[in-house]
């Protein structure tokens, strides 16, 4: 049990540290969002639309539209501009809560990772390392890449997530591969 707790805690610190490096120091995610000089006009249009917090795709069909009406909207929009808008009425600059939650989730992820890896017995060092990278790549494909595929989220917005998935889980895999296979663990 102690082996799992220490392995998960240190693994979560490694993953969290890479995320901090990637987002803040190395600025790998800088291309994720672009800047437009027209932001004031766009923002005032969104504010005037009296939107609730949430994600909107537009043009979209009204919630009470029939299947035929939805298909008609879909066909009519072929070749025309479209957008997906996430709108929030009040931004929060609080970083403490997201950091705490972020670390807790990283911890849970490393526990899940160990649990998955040792399902059929303790793998070799290489098995643990490559298994961790496989989970990272899996997560990227299941999340950001599927958004790219179905919603055309731009590649520039998701490429840094691929680096994060491989590097963070690769580093965690190196640690777990060494730690879990130590001959005598506390």
């Amino acid at each position, binding site marked *: 049990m102690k082996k799992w707790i220490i392995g998960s805690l240190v693994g979560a610190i490694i993953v969290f540290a890479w995320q901090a490096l990637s987002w803040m120091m190395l600025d790998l995610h800088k291309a994720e969002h672009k800047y437009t000089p027209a932001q004031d006009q766009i923002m005032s249009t969104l504010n005037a639309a009296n939107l609730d917090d949430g994600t909107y795709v537009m043009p979209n069909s009204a919630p009470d539209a029939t299947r035929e009406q939805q298909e008609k909207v879909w066909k009519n929009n072929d070749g025309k501009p479209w957008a997906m808008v996430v709108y929030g009425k009040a931004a929060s600059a609080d970083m403490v809560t997201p950091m705490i939650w972020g670390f807790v989730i990283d911890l849970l992820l490393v526990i899940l990772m160990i649990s998955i890896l040792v399902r*059929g017995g303790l793998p070799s060092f290489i098995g643990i390392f490559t298994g961790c990278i496989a989970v990272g*790549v899996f997560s990227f494909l299941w999340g950001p890449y599927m958004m790219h595929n179905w919603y055309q989220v731009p590649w520039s917005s998701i490429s840094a997530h691929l680096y994060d998935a491989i590097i963070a889980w690769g580093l965690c895999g190196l640690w777990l591969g060494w730690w879990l296979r130590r001959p005598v663990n506390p």
Partner: protein
Amino acid sequence: MGIGLHNNSMKYTPAQDNIMSVLSANIKEDGAYMIPSAATAKERQDMMKSMEGKPWASVIYHSSMSGDMTMRFIRGFLVNFFLVISLIYMLTRGGTPILRRVVSGSVAFGLAAWLWTFYMGHIWADLPWHMITADLIDSIVAWALCGIWLGWWLNRPGNRAAPVSA
């Protein structure tokens, strides 16, 4: 499509025509935009505090919609195929687990993927719950079903991998 779990993932606004015309008139390049933002990293850092409590938006804009679903289905299937290969690879690192462990490992895999991507997006980028809940259901149900299949298939006599020795 069938059950419509994702029907509430994206909202509708009656103001969409007005918003789209403003976006089309002002955005010259396809891509994702954070609003408000600034041209340089230093300016972005400085404006963070002043943003507290004010409205914000993230906009993904495309000048031309492609209604073609064939390529998306093909890519989607290929990615799913690769994901299942990754899952088998992961689960059998130390030998073939029993059915129950394959199922729980598969669900853990789906849950981990959702936490690392969509839930992290919720924490850091304020992705709304209504957008990511159906993805959570997908992650658990799809991988549980796949786990049941793999648990049976991988444990068939002749398919079992030998445990990894020290």
